């Protein structure tokens, strides 16, 4: 799955952990407040980028084709910090002409001027955390914006010239009927996004939401109810010309996220910033000081999750790694099914085991078999992880 002849990832994830408030459902690496830390943080990322580039780079050969600046709330960074960051990326790794460069943004505080400067700095795509267009739901989700702010944010981005816009939407919010979600989605469609990520609200351990659920204060909707909202959203988005290309992602033609497709294809990528994960070829990982046992097919590595710890380590050592693991062939096979089945394209049958299993799953209408490709059916998509387990053997 790593393109032959290249060891170097052509995708880069940059994590900006800062948030103005904590959303009760979020389990990403976040750092509350800390505006004063922004310059120092960008410097640390620059340092980490330099280290990776020096050891693992081949600037002439393979510039990046996708960059994703996620968070946290990267839109909180002042435009000049973002410029500085992308400058360092370009200097160390190169950014290919026509590359996809995405920034995640929160509706609150977006100005046209800032957006203009992002685009000038090389950003090509904005992923906007709309989440809902219902004020009550937004309050419940702990968001800092209301529906009107979100709508205004889209308008400002459009004015600034953003041509590739993705919006996040959340369904299966506890206590909210399907109709509430449906209204949000309808309103979102009037904003004409090129791309929509439509997620079920997931209760992640360690979050405030999880604690509330454990204490019985919040009751998540039953699986069947959540699935009804999901399939309704799929139908509605498809009808509006946004085709489902992954479990939770929908796009107009040629608007799929190239960066995220790298994840689902099992491709390699750099991860820079607090809590960021990387996926690297074994020889490259070794060069970067991550020895792995023989037999590993790839290496997954991750940075310090806490921002202060990340900063301290990078400033000391030039890198912020907290750990890594060699992915054995068998584990890689499981990943391939786990990730690949999420995509509309499905996965090509390769192992004897999968060849034997697939027809049974097809007979139960959990997958379809089209020549050598396995794709999940709607029913199959509901239990995708178990199907992956079954096919991986």
């Amino acid at each position, binding site marked *: 799955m790593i393109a032959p002849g290249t060891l170097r990832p052509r995708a880069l994830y940059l994590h900006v952990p800062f948030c103005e408030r904590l959303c009760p459902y979020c389990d990403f690496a976040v750092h509350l407040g800390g505006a004063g830390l922004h310059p120092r943080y960008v410097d640390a990322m620059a340092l980490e980028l330099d280290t990776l580039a020096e050891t693992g780079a081949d600037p002439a050969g393979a510039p990046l084709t996708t960059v994703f600046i996620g968070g946290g709330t990267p839109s909180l960074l002042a435009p000049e910090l973002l410029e500085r960051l992308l400058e360092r990326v370009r200097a160390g790794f190169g950014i290919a002409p026509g590359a996809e460069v995405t920034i995640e943004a929160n509706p609150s505080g977006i100005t046209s001027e800032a957006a203009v400067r992002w685009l000038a700095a090389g950003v090509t795509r904005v992923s906007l955390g709309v989440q809902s267009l219902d004020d009550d739901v937004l309050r419940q989700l702990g968001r800092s914006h209301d529906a009107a702010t979100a709508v205004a944010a889209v308008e400002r981005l459009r004015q600034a010239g953003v041509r590739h816009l993705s919006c996040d939407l959340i369904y299966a919010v506890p206590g909210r009927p399907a109709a509430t979600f449906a209204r949000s989605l309808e309103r979102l469609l009037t904003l004409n996004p090129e791309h929509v990520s439509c997620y079920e*609200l997931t209760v992640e351990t360690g979050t405030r939401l999880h604690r509330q659920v454990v204490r019985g204060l919040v009751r998540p909707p039953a*699986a069947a109810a959540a699935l009804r909202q999901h399939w309704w959203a799929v139908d509605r988005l498809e009808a509006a010309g946004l085709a489902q290309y992954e479990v*939770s992602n929908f796009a107009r033609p040629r608007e799929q996220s190239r960066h995220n497709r790298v*994840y689902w294809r099992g491709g390699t990528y750099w991860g820079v910033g607090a809590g960021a994960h990387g*996926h690297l070829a074994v020889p490259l990982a070794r060069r970067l000081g991550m020895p792995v046992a023989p037999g590993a097919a790839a290496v997954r590595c*991750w940075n310090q999750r806490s921002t202060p710890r990340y900063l301290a380590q990078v400033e000391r050592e030039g890198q912020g790694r907290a750990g890594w693991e060699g992915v054995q062939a068998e584990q890689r096979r499981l990943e391939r099914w786990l*990730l690949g089945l999420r995509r509309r394209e499905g996965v090509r049958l390769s192992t004897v085991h999968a060849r034997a299993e697939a027809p049974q799953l097809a007979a139960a209408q959990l997958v379809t078999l089209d020549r050598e490709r396995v794709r999940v059916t709607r029913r199959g998509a509901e239990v995708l992880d178990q199907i992956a387990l079954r096919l991986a053997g």
Partner: protein
Amino acid sequence: MPATPIERVRNFSIIAHIDHGKSTLADRLLERTGTVAARDMTEQLLDTMDLERERGITIKAQAVRIVHRASDGLTYQLNLIDTPGHVDFAYEVSRALAACEGAILVVDASQGIEAQTLANVYKAVDLGLALVPVVNKIDLPAAEPERVVAEIERVLGLPAGQTLLASARTGAGIDQVLEAVVERVPAPIGDRAAPLQALIFDSKYDAYRGVIIYVRLMAGRIAAGTQIKMMAGGASFTVDEVGIFRPQMTLVDELAAGEVGYLVASIRDVRDAKVGDTVTNLEDPAAAPLPGYRQVTPMVWAGLYPVEGDAYPDLREALGRLQLNDAALTYEPETSVALGFGFRCGFLGLLHLDIVQERLEREFTLDLITTAPSVAYRVTTHDGAEILVDNPAQLPDASQIDQICEPRVEAELLMPRDAVGQVMELCQERRGEMLHLEYQVGDRALLRYDLPLGEIISDFYDQLKSRSRGYASLDYELRAYRPAELVKLDVLVAGSRVDALSSITHKNRAQLQGRRLVERLKTLIPRQLFEVPIQAAVGGRIIARETVPALRKDVLAKCYGGDITRKRKLLEKQREGKKRMKRVGNVEIPQEAFMAVLRLEQS
């Protein structure tokens, strides 16, 4: 060491409830008489298997010789014989008690008499043993020795004046216990000039010396070089050595009538030295064997299968090693569509099965699936053939069966009077036929029942204990086969019959049993990708059905760069769990489901 004069030998065992201090008392006796130096004491010397110490039960009998100088100035040979304690081993217990003339009855000074004690006391009394009651743990704050002494008099009819007070922990009263054994336990009677008669009350396998036979001599003498013959088994050997346990094996010149010890005779198979058999001289044998020999045969069969198929050779090896020490265990290879290659094993009862399974898992680190236990049925087919079926899956099709006969036992149940009603009710439920009821001395009643063996191998003993608040005891002996209206209850999972889940049951109970079985299986089989129908069927007719609904949802909403490792690890863990399940067609069935048939009654 020459033989001790017979009038100075005392053979006794200790009867006690599980934690009333039997082992501590035994340890103290060994220590006080210098049999074991205090510094060599490991707690509870007698239970040598880890499993025995943990469960507080004795599986193999033990015998220790104590040499004691009594207050009359004479030196006595005291043989302490420790007995196993469960109905599965009731026969072994009776042989160990038959090797004694007396028993110390230990009762906790705060707990009083408990059920297990009572059942064994009844046995000892029936064998004519002299009882030495001892109230133990008198040093504890909660001790009420007077109350317990009175209770012993009331329940067992043992005069209060005869009961001794002791604390095995502090050592108080231990000398009096030793004195009482000398005074009250009668000396054995036996003609040392007569032909040899030695009762085998246990045996164990030693990798270097072969089978070590535990014997009590009833008549004659035995020494190295003696040519011996097993009167029931028929095999003959030359004795290599005779000895005693102190408690380690110690060579002696000879053993004579009245004495207890061991003999080694290059015997390679424990089945050549069966408990209850009589050892005699090859030339000039005794006129008759000792009474009470019983051929110990398996009563219950179950399939043992390795969870992972490639462990089959390990299982075979392990069973072979266990059998060296366990004459009652039998095994032969069998196959199951659901479970693959395994063994059909024969056991004395469920505890025996449990112990074998636990030892296989623990001592040989095997991961096993045990199928529901079954008894052996005699089946006559229309073409006149008679076959023995100990695996329900192998019962011929109902259309071919002329008649099925089930094994019946005669059960002897002892209990306090006020439990008679409850116990009778239980026996009736299990298709029992009452043979005899008798109210005996003191508080006790005796019930004799004719019962189907198949009805008492599951949870009968547990039920009996719970309905008599623990006080009833059970002993049974196989009697005869009798025709019964039995049917095979099959289980179909997702439409395919799972052979390992079949059972044989009475026609009238099939409906209820089938319903409960599918209900139970529904709770044990986890949700799968597909809906899984579970059906119970008798002769192709579905009599009960449940459905395990399909897994509703298992998909991660967001799966990006940072989520992959975590999700994969979660699935890897699930995959490990699935390895412990057996796949039948499309369905993954966990280990516990195969025991569901057995646990049905208990649920």
